[in-house]
Every structure is written in C-alpha cells, then in structure tokens.
C-alpha cells in the first residue's frame, strides 16, 4: 500500500506539463538527468553548456506574460498527449478512484497557476486601452466565483462558456457545471466496466484549484451523464466544505 502512495508522490514530482496550451509559457525543458526509457529529443537549437544557464534563468523572468500569437496548439496534439497521460496513469493505478485522483492532481497543478495568471494578464495588458484598467480585485462571494469559473475560466480554456450552472436541490452545498461536449475527453472512450470513470477529472482538478485558491475549499469531481441529445455530456460536481457555507451565511445572502 505504501508503495502505491510513494508512486503517487513520484508522479506528482515528475508529472509532465499537463496541457500543451500552456507549454509556451513554460521554460524550455532541459533534458532530464533522471534515466528514462527512451531518449528525450533535445529541443532545437541544442542547449549551450552550463555557464550560460544563468542567462537562461534570467530570460525566463524577463519574458512577458502576454498571450503570444503562436501559443495555441492543435487539438490533435493535445489529444495525443492526453491519451498518453491516460495510458500511463492506467498502468500505475489499481482502481477508478485512484485514477481520477491522479488526473485531479494534474489538473490541480494547472489550476493554481491559471488562477494567478489570468488576473495578472488582465491587469498588465488591459483589453481596452481607452479607460484605465480597473484595479485588480478578488472574488469574495460564492456565486460570482462560480460564474467566473463557468464563463471566464472556461472561455480561456476551451474558447466557449460552459453550458450550464446549477445548484443541486438535494444538498445545500453542491453545485454543478454542465458541459455538453467536453473537449479534453473527446478522444477518450471509456469501456463499460469502468463506466464511472470520467477523464474530465482533469478539468475537475483545474476547477478545484481555482475554488481552493480563492478561499472556497471544496471537492470537485466529474461525472459523465450522457443524454440523448449530448451523448458526451459531463457534469462537474462541486461540493463545498461546510466552513464555506457557514461563512457565506454569516456574510449574509
């Protein structure tokens, strides 16, 4: 049992960059000194020797954060990467729960960085140059945050808003964001015996990081609920921690 925990830990440490959309922001990867089963091709041009490492590190801090023109990547490349991630994870886990947990962790790491990056970009590079930019602000209440996830975040990730935002009628602390056709899972077919698995757990991880970072800790999971019109519909279920509810009622509805 402890060995699987260790392997989860190793996977966190050595996980690859999760989404090719963000790969342009990351520093060019130095060839890993850890042993790997296949040779990692060096990025071209080949990296100069060590003393100029310092120069490269400085260059990372100097790099502007604006969205550069060539930073979007083809969906096919993402689908390939994601399918490799899923296959790799499948070999290492012993059940659906752990599978979803790993994908969740990968998404979490993306979400933390996104949460900080998007407001920073809005602030540094305001869309309309006519007015002075509004001072940066944080979301304090739950509903504005949920609609931020539903529209702004989704629009940044997938170029469209999510399809629905609902509050669960049974439990006070559950909210659902529905997506009729989740882009990341388009290439993944789940066999019948694993039908509870949803690879949308990656997106659930991103949402969980956003909720946690903003001060609304919650458990976020993804479930696939195929409907006749949208056979690949996925619902992201957000279950808030009780302290969030307490604070919301204290702050007054």
């Amino acid at each position, binding site marked *: 049992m402890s060995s699987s925990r260790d392997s989860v830990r190793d996977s966190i440490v050595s996980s690859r960059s999760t989404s090719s959309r963000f790969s342009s922001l990351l520093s060019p990867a130095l060839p890993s000194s850890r042993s790997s089963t296949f040779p990692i091709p060096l990025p071209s041009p080949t990296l100069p020797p060590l003393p100029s490492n310092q120069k490269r*590190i400085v260059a*990372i801090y100097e790099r502007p954060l604006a969205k550069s023109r060539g930073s979007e990547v083809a969906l096919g490349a993402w689908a390939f990467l994601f399918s490799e991630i899923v296959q790799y994870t499948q070999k290492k886990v012993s059940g659906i729960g752990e599978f979803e947990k790993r994908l969740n962790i990968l998404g979490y*790491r993306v979400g933390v960085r996104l949460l900080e990056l998007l407001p920073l970009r809005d602030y540094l590079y305001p869309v309309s140059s006519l007015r002075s930019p509004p001072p*940066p602000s944080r979301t304090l209440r739950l509903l504005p945050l949920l609609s931020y996830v539903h529209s702004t975040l989704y629009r940044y990730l997938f170029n469209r808003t999510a399809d629905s935002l609902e509050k669960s009628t049974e439990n006070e602390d559950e909210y659902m964001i529905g997506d009729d056709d989740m882009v990341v899972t388009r290439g993944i077919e789940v066999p019948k015996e694993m039908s509870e698995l949803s690879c949308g757990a990656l997106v659930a991880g991103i949402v969980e990081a956003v909720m946690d970072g903003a001060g609304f800790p919650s458990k976020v999971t993804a479930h696939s609920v195929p409907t006749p019109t949208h056979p690949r519909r996925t619902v992201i279920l957000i279950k808030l921690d009780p302290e969030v509810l307490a*604070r919301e009622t204290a702050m007054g509805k």
Partner: protein
Amino acid sequence: MSYYLVLVGTLDNPLYEAHLTSTKSAPAPANPASTSPTTSFSIFGSPAPGGAAGAAGKSTVGYGSKNGPNGRHVMQLVAHASLDVVEDVMWSNGGMYLKNVDKFQEWTVSAWLTPGGMKILLLHELKNDDGIRLFFQEVWESYVKTLLNPFHELNAPIRSPTFDARVKASAKKFL
C-alpha cells in the same frame, strides 16, 4: 529606511523573506524635545541628541534594528502576527491591495492578497501608498513567473537568486 518583505503561503509558511533598505531618506525625525517614547528614536537606533535618550528609556531602543538586541526576528514576528488582521480584513475588502492593516510601534504592515490565496506582507515605517502598491505589483508579477515553472512545488520556499535580484531592483525603484 528599512523594510521587511515576506511572502506567506497558504499554510501560513513564509516562502520568501527580504530585508530591504531604501535609498530615499526618511523625513526629519521628531525633535529631541518630544516626549512621546515611540518617536524619540529612529529605527536604526541613532540616539536623538540630548537627554531624550534617557527619558524615553524602555525598549524602543533596539526594536528591529539590525544591530539591536531584538533584531530581525521581531520584524518577522510582527509581520506574522498581523496575518490575523489580514485574514479578518480580507473578507470585507475586495481589492488586492490592503494598506495599513496593522500598526506596531513605529511600523505599519501593508498587505497584497493575490487571487491565488498568497499574502505578500510589507513592514514599513514611511507612508508611501502608491510606491508600495507598485512595488507589490512587481513582486506579484515575479511570483507568478516563478509559479509558472512546472517544477516549482506549490507552497515551496523560493530560493532563486534571480527572484531575489528582481525584488531588490523593484524595491530600489519604488520604495
């Protein structure tokens, strides 16, 4: 004047600390005839001329001065003690820049809350709202660039010398 900057992570752990000095000179210190104990000494402990030294006596002498008996860890203590106040204020104030959240002796604490839940605290004596706000923004920007490194573990201490150099350069520019 000197400043103390600390980046505090979500587990209330300090990720980065810096003692900064500013090239701008302080406004003239309170005249020696003043009887209020807190202003009779400038932070670096150079005694005001005259007998005010003896009159004030007490522990304002070496507070936070780098060479004083209490020294730097007092600044760290004060900054972290103000975290409670910051957490109180953060739910009523929607902006990121919180100025003057706490005051202790001659220092004020200002904070910048990043959208990701990180707190950047600055201990300062002088009132310099705009400069401090711009400084905070630059530190935030450098922090986000550090975060974007996929090998950077979240809530890990930041040890990069480049980050250090950038923070010090921003301090020189704005403080």
